[in-house]
């Protein structure tokens, strides 16, 4: 039988546990990506070359910072997650004392998603009409005012869409973390669905992943639309 309801019911506690672990991993990694990625994306934008880079215009044109940060971001982003996961084992071990389990997995998930989110933040900042920033410079606004009252509010909707994309990419990556025993839905799918040919669990996990992604995307789009006053 392809899908056995009684087996599914029997496995439900495990599925719930895995679901909780996925939420934990994604939650930790997302928090770190937001806390570090947002300022990083902002830094990438305000140090970039262009209209606001000249020191006179008020924003922080700094080619050196921009190149260094940009290089690190690209470096991390160019490594496939599964390799990053393994490569970070020593660091993970040092940081959380273990390489197995959802907490350990969230270390590499954080490292992978932070530059991803930072680039998304930078992209949403680039979409702001340069004229609006220029008008703020003309009005005599300080750098901090421009960041707080112009850049962040104007990019808000785009940043929320970036959060949505980051969560979805985290859910996908977290499933991969299952391969090395990271726990969560992916772990369940590999241990039961793949190693034991347990179709019920395979189908259940796939459905759960689909539902999670759909719900996040819909919610993200709705929030982005509500906050946007354009």
């Amino acid at each position, binding site marked *: 039988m392809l899908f056995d309801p009684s087996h599914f019911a029997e496995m439900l506690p495990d599925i719930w546990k895995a679901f909780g672990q996925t939420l934990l991993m994604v939650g930790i990694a997302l928090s770190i990506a937001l806390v570090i990625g947002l300022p990083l994306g902002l830094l990438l934008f305000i140090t970039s070359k262009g209209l606001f880079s000249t020191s006179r215009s008020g924003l922080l044109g700094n080619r050196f910072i921009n190149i260094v940060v940009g290089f690190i971001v690209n470096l991390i982003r160019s490594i496939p997650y599964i390799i990053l996961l393994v490569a970070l084992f020593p660091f993970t071990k040092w940081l959380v004392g273990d390489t197995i389990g959802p907490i350990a997995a969230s270390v590499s998930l954080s490292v992978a998603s932070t530059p991803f989110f930072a680039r998304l933040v930078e992209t949403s900042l680039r979409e702001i009409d340069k004229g*609006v920033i220029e008008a703020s410079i003309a009005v005599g606004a300080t750098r901090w005012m421009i960041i707080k009252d112009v850049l962040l509010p104007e990019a808000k909707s785009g940043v929320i869409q970036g959060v949505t994309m980051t969560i979805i990419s985290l859910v996908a990556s977290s499933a991969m973390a299952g391969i090395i025993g990271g726990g969560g839905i992916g772990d369940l799918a590999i241990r039961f669905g793949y190693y034991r040919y347990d179709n019920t669990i395979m189908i259940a996990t796939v459905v759960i992943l689909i539902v999670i992604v759909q719900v996040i995307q819909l919610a993200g789009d709705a929030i982005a639309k509500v906050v946007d006053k354009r």
Partner: protein
Amino acid sequence: MYVLEIQNVSKVYKAKKKSIIGVDHVSLTIRDGEIFGIVGYSGAGKSSLLRCINLLEQPTDGQILIDGQDLTKLKGEKLRQARLKIGMIFQHFYLISQKTVGENIEFALKAAKLPKESRNERVEELLNMVGLTDKKDVFPSQLSGGQKQRVGIARALANNPSVLLCDEATSALDPTTTTSILRLLKKINRELGITIILITHEMDVVKEICDRMAIMQNGKVIEEGPVYDIFANPEKPLTQEFISSIVSFDIPSAILQNVQGQIVKILFKGDIAGEGVISDMLQQFKVQGNFLHGTIEYIQEKPLGIFLMELDGQVEDIKRSISYMENRGVTVEVLDHVI
């Protein structure tokens, strides 16, 4: 006292291999309390010049003096302070879309570090001035173009600037809205004594509100002076082209063929227009007059009458009639003789 001096300002843009000259050694003196218009086609450098005034663009060369202070020497905090006293409005308004009208204006007040209590009061005052008292908590997307520009004006005036720069401020607006915005600018100029520098490609705008004007071409100012004088006597071909968009004298060739006498262009300036010089002339001389074309433009409420007339009669009589009119203060220009 001169409020603003642009001295020998140049702006060169470095492109990949060649450099492009945006502004080419421009010197202008803007007087305290006047409305100064800079006219030119797109690419003439007028926008670059305007942006050099508040250092949105750093001039490659030259000085911008406001009340004797050279802005091009300022940096950082000093430059920011100087910018508080130079308002600017834009063709596309550039309001913060995620903030309400009130917050957009308050933003400028925050830049001047005005305490929170006084900010609210000042926002109300400014909204009142631009006629948007009921729009304080509305977002810019819910406003019409004209209303957005009013918010832009309120923001620009928030910190009592001495100069207001208008970058094609009415070019995105329909004619009726343009008129109302121009009226508002004029009111601001007269009531608050704020000097206004505006750039535009619409001669109507200049005719409507400017005291003096400059015409730019290829980064250079090719002609400048009081608007009335330039309308009455445009010297450069480009200036004439711009003026002709307002005052055009194309006579259909069918009519020209029937012209027997001498065609003259007659210019009445100011009060002369009402004096009946032509009827006096026709009575005194044996000359027949025939109007071919004519208009009276009111520039700064001063009439400027321009007429094309055919004078028919003895050559001597025509000559005498012309000098008679000239003696009465009318400018007469003899156009090509058509038989």
